[in-house]
């Protein structure tokens, strides 16, 4: 039996096409994937992200504990700031990629992938049991209490403030990665200026019982600006264009953040953290594989996960596999990500993607495919 978010009835009312994702029954689209993708790129899209997980970590040793299990440096964060970060195992393989917010000096809020909630909680509890200061850390899985939505697109900033009760510093004043509490019809919610689409936008965490009212309110208030509900299909095409990795496709326990090109979010100098030793080695010696972005050379069937990647040489060799791939609605060409040996990950390198038995020409390109104007 699939799980349903607090917005399930709303999705049904909107005529969403529902599919299974990480054990949840979620909307893949309402009108069409491409239509919703274009709406986010030109106006605004509203996504249900309630299936994601929320963890609360607080206490005098919360910072020390988390900084020992996450790759990025939480000391960079003042209260009201967040950062993209990764959690690695001892082999530096990625357990999850996530956002860590500092709500207060000793108060942290982690947003984790829906498919990894159980794995992350188990991993963190294990790590906590071995942490010397564990009596000063409180770790709570608050995923069932929180629902969440993401409003993304260039027009969002023009109507987002009206979706909340008046505040001395409104949501539109939040800078990228900032988070703050607001009231929506008297209910306390958390709003961050973050997203997974490559557009400006906000993510809102609210108590499950308040989310449907908030969802309807956003659609009403944003209607003149063209806001549309958007599903997981568009979420995937948007994040692929922005070159954001998806855990389970581009990241897993057998890939390291450096192989994925996420070195910016790995603070080797902050002190010890799980996976640091291997990452330091990889930084010094280089990695055996790198996540490369590629574009198909012409009109052809789209590249998809697991399609083989071949070198475009006289004696072609199989050099890797597509991890994420799709037809880019914005660029109108096939795009994808694949792990290949580092020498092939250089922009302008020609490669071939095997699409249903045929070799299709592609070129490695710099990331991202799309950057908002």
């Amino acid at each position, binding site marked *: 039996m699939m799980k349903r978010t607090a917005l399930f009835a709303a999705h049904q009312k909107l005529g969403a096409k529902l599919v299974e994702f990480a054990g949840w029954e979620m909307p893949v689209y309402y009108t069409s994937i491409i239509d919703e993708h274009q709406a986010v790129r030109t106006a605004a899209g509203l996504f249900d992200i309630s299936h994601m997980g929320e963890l609360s970590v607080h206490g005098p040793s919360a910072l020390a504990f988390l900084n020992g299990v996450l790759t990025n440096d939480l000391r960079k964060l003042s209260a009201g700031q967040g950062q993209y970060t990764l959690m690695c195992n001892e082999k530096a393989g990625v357990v999850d990629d996530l956002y860590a917010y500092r709500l207060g000096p000793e108060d942290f809020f982690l947003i984790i992938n829906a498919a990894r909630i159980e794995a992350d909680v188990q991993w963190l509890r294990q790590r906590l049991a071995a942490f010397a200061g564990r009596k000063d850390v409180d770790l709570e899985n608050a995923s069932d209490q929180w629902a969440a939505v993401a409003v993304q697109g260039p027009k969002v900033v023009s109507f987002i403030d009206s979706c909340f009760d008046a505040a001395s510093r409104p949501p539109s004043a939040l800078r990228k990665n900032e988070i703050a509490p607001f009231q929506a019809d008297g209910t306390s919610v958390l709003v961050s200026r973050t997203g997974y689409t490559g557009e400006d936008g906000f993510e809102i965490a609210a108590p499950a019982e308040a989310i449907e009212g908030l969802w309807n309110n956003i659609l009403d208030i944003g209607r003149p600006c063209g806001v549309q509900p958007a599903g997981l299909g568009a979420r995937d095409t948007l994040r692929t264009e922005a070159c954001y990795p998806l855990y389970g496709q581009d990241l897993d326990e057998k890939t390291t953040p450096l192989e994925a090109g996420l070195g910016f979010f790995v603070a080797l100098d902050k002190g010890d953290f799980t996976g640091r030793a291997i990452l330091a080695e990889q930084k010094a010696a280089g990695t055996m594989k790198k996540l490369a972005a590629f574009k198909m050379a012409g009109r052809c069937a*789209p590249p998809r996960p697991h399609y083989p990647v071949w070198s475009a040489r006289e004696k072609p060799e199989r050099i890797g596999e597509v991890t994420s791939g799709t037809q880019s609605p914005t660029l109108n060409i096939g795009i994808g990500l694949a792990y290949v040996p580092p020498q092939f990950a250089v922009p302008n390198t020609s490669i071939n993607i095997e699409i249903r038995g045929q070799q299709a020409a592609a070129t490695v390109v710099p990331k991202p495919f799309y950057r908002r104007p």
Partner: protein
Amino acid sequence: MSANVPSDLKYVKSHEWIRVTGDTVTIGITDHAQEELTDVVFVELPAVGRKVKIGEGCAVVESVKTASDIYAPVSGEVVAANDQLAKHPELANSAPYGDGWFFKIKLSDPAELGGLMSADDYSKQIAS
């Protein structure tokens, strides 16, 4: 969403429709099929002149979500392939029974028409 199933067409289990005009048939994918596929981004059509046997894979339709094989619902020779569809794959979504047609076959065995599903039978299939 309830799909459109025109009563003047024939169907096969694999969600294609067939319009019979004398000894030539026009083939496309049904409204139900295009709904399931979501946005069609690429189609691969058989070459004109190719001989096909009933049940043989002869075309491919790719959507953002997935790739799907199209099977010849009857045996014969491909006499036309829809170039407009190749250039504008989204026609399969917007006009599945009209401008989104895929290809035409000249029948080699008209008796095969008897094995095709009626609109009623196809409607029952997609309702279950």
